[in-house]
């Protein structure tokens, strides 16, 4: 049946929202409930793929509501970066749902209905965010994302979950209300528009002090991009169940952050203005510091999820660097890294969760010899690590490649060095894990009751691991989308 593109755009947001009702209604019949989520994610994939075909063919998909405030409406427009992000989020929702089924049941988690319902709301807001045509719409979905993921982060209901939730909400709301909202209203006041426009919204008469300050407010305000010192929410959110960490904090929430950074840099400031702003350099070095410092902290973490969390902070810094370099290669690299890192990190988190469910181990120092009992999981971990490090034959290679090119184009040799050193640090904190799993012998006094992860989880992590490799060879569609941004 023929769907109008605008309807499909609407449906990508509506279907997950409607799924919430279905999930709550079938709450006491777990198989039916999971069926609702699975069906909804398949429908979303169908629509997102069709939209990709439309956008690739040169069609434009836009929809606008009546004004909410005079001059400001909820409006949507699919541009290449948004298309990329929505594709990543849409496909990975299905994969994560499959994984969650294995994990939540294997771990005997309570309140699963609430879990799946909030997940669906979060995905719906990610779709809205990806397709937002102005900062106002984006901000609305950004905040909905923060609030809908709070019950997911505090799922366990324990005191530590509550504390983690406080840090999560505290940092994200402080940055979004104090800095981001101020920046948006400031932009609205100065430029009289907050619509994403190619080339930026500021005209040449705007005083540099204003645009430079706004840039700082934006970068600090987009707390989801985890630029230091506003990165603390990410490790704090690791108290959430692993599927939450996997999709939301490796893919959706953090990617929403760096996606917003890219959109602001490209469509609000414009690369030309960005390259002239004095504060862009300061922020570039801050992002580089984040990349290095987070990697160093990651090396010191023994808890696997904590290590992966700091690794994410570091990798997000890459994308922010890509945006702030103000070169087209940098933006392309940043955009591609959104997809590459998503697949890589989600694999790593899936494995971490699988290890926890199958062997109840969370500390890396306990994971001797795990590779013998959970070979598929650890191989997938290895592949995911390669992707994060940026080695062939995984997709992460391309992300790093274009980021390095971007740094070269901007004559920022220091950044190139930062990227290279960071890759070495990645090796240092990621590779020991699969190596320990395969090549060390487990202590004899440990029980031998560890098996491979539950089947749905195994399927999910295998799929994403293969995805990392596939993205190395079949990069062209992604590359074309990224190129089309500028």
């Amino acid at each position, binding site marked *: 049946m023929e769907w109008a593109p605008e309807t499909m755009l609407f449906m990508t947001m509506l279907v997950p929202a409607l799924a919430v009702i279905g999930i709550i209604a079938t709450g006491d019949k777990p198989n039916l409930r999971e069926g609702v989520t699975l069906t909804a994610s398949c429908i979303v994939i169908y629509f997102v793929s069709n939209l990709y075909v439309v956008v690739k063919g040169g069609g434009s998909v836009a929809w606008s509501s009546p004004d909410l405030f005079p001059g400001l409406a909820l409006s949507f427009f699919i541009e290449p970066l948004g298309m990329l992000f929505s594709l990543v989020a849409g496909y990975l929702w299905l994969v994560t749902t499959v994984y969650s089924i294995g994990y939540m049941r294997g771990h005997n988690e309570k309140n699963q209905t609430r879990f799946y319902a909030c997940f669906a709301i979060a995905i719906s807001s990610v779709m809205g965010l990806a397709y937002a045509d102005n900062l106002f719409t984006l901000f609305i979905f950004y*905040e909905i994302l923060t609030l809908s993921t709070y019950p997911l982060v505090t799922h366990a209901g324990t005191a530590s979950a509550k504390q983690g939730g406080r840090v999560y909400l505290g940092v994200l709301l402080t940055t979004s*209300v104090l800095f981001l909202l101020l920046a948006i209203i400031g932009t609205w006041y100065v430029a009289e528009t907050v619509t994403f426009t190619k080339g930026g919204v500021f005209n040449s008469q705007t005083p540099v002090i204003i645009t430079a300050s706004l840039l700082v407010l934006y970068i600090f305000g987009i707390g989801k991009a985890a630029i230091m010192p506003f990165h603390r929410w990410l490790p704090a959110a690791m108290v959430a169940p692993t599927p939450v960490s996997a999709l939301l904090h490796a893919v959706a929430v953090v990617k929403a952050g760096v996606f917003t950074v890219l959109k602001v840099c490209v469509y609000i400031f414009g690369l030309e203005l960005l390259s002239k702003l004095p504060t862009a350099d300061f922020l570039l070095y801050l992002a580089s510091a984040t990349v290095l410092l987070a990697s160093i902290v990651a090396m010191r973490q023994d808890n696997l999820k904590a290590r992966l969390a700091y690794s994410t902070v570091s990798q997000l810094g890459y994308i922010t660097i890509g945006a702030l370099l103000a070169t087209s290669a940098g933006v392309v690299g940043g955009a591609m890294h959104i997809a590459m890192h998503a697949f890589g990190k989600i694999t790593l988190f899936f494995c971490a969760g699988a290890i926890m469910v199958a062997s109840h181990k969370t500390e890396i120092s306990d994971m001797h010899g795990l590779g013998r009992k959970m070979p598929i999981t650890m191989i997938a971990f290895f592949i995911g690590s390669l992707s994060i490090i940026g080695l062939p034959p995984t997709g992460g290679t391309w992300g790093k490649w274009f980021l390095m090119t971007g740094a070269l184009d901007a004559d920022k040799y220091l950044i190139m060095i930062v990227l290279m050193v960071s890759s070495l640090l990645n090796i240092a904190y990621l590779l020991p894990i699969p190596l320990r799993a395969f090549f060390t012998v487990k202590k004899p006094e440990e029980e031998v009751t560890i098996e491979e992860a539950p089947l749905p989880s195994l399927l999910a992590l295998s799929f994403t691991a293969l995805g990392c490799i596939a993205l190395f060879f079949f990069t062209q569609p992604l590359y074309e989308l990224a190129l089309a941004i500028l």
Partner: protein
Amino acid sequence: MTAHFPILQVIIPLLAAPLCLFLRIPRLVGIFAILVSAAAFLISCGLLHQVITQGVISYEIGGWPAPWGIEYRIDTLNSYLLLLVSGVSTIILIAAQSSITKELPENRHTFFYTAYLLCLTGLLGILATADAFNVFVFLEISALSSYTLIALGTDRRALTASYQYLVMGTIGATFIIIGVGFMYMTTGTLNMYDLAERLPSVYGSKTVLSAFGFLIVGVCLKLALFPLHLWLPNAYAFAPSIATAFLAATSTKVAVYVLIRYIFSIFSIDFVTKSLPLGDIFLTLGLAGIFAASITAIYQINVKRLFAYSSVAQIGYMILGLAIGTQLGLTATLLHLFNHALMKAALFLAIGAVVYRIGSSQLHHFAGLGKRMPWTMAAIVAGGLSLIGVPLTVGFVSKWYLVVALLERGWWPVAILVLISSLLAVIYVWRLVEWIYFVKPRVVLDDVKEAPLIQLIPIWMLIFANFYFGVDTRLTVGVSKLAAQNLFGVNM
């Protein structure tokens, strides 16, 4: 009939109030009160429609021409507020019957409705009238009936709270009447618009300056501007829940209206900002109120008191909007009048439902209620989100306009302070949310059921309004902008 709407708006609840005493059966009185309030609401809809299509309505009571007779003048500003007050009053009354059965002894129910309707009369009268002395009359009617309403609370501290409010409220009212007296002395008229014409010639005299001073202080006592807010927390905490909901949503808003009327329609904005540094005073007191009240709210253990301090902070926002002194600033204030009424009415009604079920509004008694009273708690969370100013709620609309107005004035440090204060709101709201959902209850809650439907419906109607007017801002923003334009324009 429609020509008499301005006076009917006030007369209907006024006459209905003593009629309640004749209807013996409390159930009947309750339904009667709802009908009266609904009638007032319909009249206010009619008035708003008339004002928008035909312009300002001027009504002379008894046919006596102004300025000797009392004139009721309905323009965009007061018709909008009449709609708000009567609408919120009706919705709150729907929940009232159920709520007061647990909070008031049976023989007091009729008193309650009588006092409530008198309070409604007073508030509607203040809004509708264009006579300065008439404002005082209705102010006293609403004040005396609010003292009664508060004193009806079950807690013995309700009496002291009511007494405290009585003392401060009477000081405020006395100041207002002194101010009116001085104005009358120098101009010989009590009609607001006549005063506006005659005052400029006597602006220089000390009498007029004192009049203005007394009026402003008197009104600020009534609207609980920091530091004249000391009566509010206790009054809201110990009054019956329905009374708190009604007063929190309406009485301070009407006092802000009186302030706006005096500043813009009687005196003029030029006189006010030049002769007295009112802008600076309001800026300082507004900010001080916002922060002091928000921080105090964080430490409260009685949830009603928590939201009472929150109200003081929100009033600070409204005064801040006035302090900006621009049309956009006034728009922000007018917007927030409406939006805050919706927020607080919903929140206090929800807390009233909790009091109905468990008999207490202490914070630690909320533990575990997330499971026993899911809909009520969800309403509290939604109202809290609106208070914080999450997008798609009315709180966000108010915040947006206030910050834009501040930026337009160039006061970006104040804008940052306003945003910091909404983070304080996050803290005190989230503290409550954590107690509701994360803390294990210390007492057995098996017999605690969800709030009765008759209370849930008005609560969720107001929550729905919070979201609806956060998305469809045509009415609120449109009318606020129009009213601000008129007030800044040449006086009538």
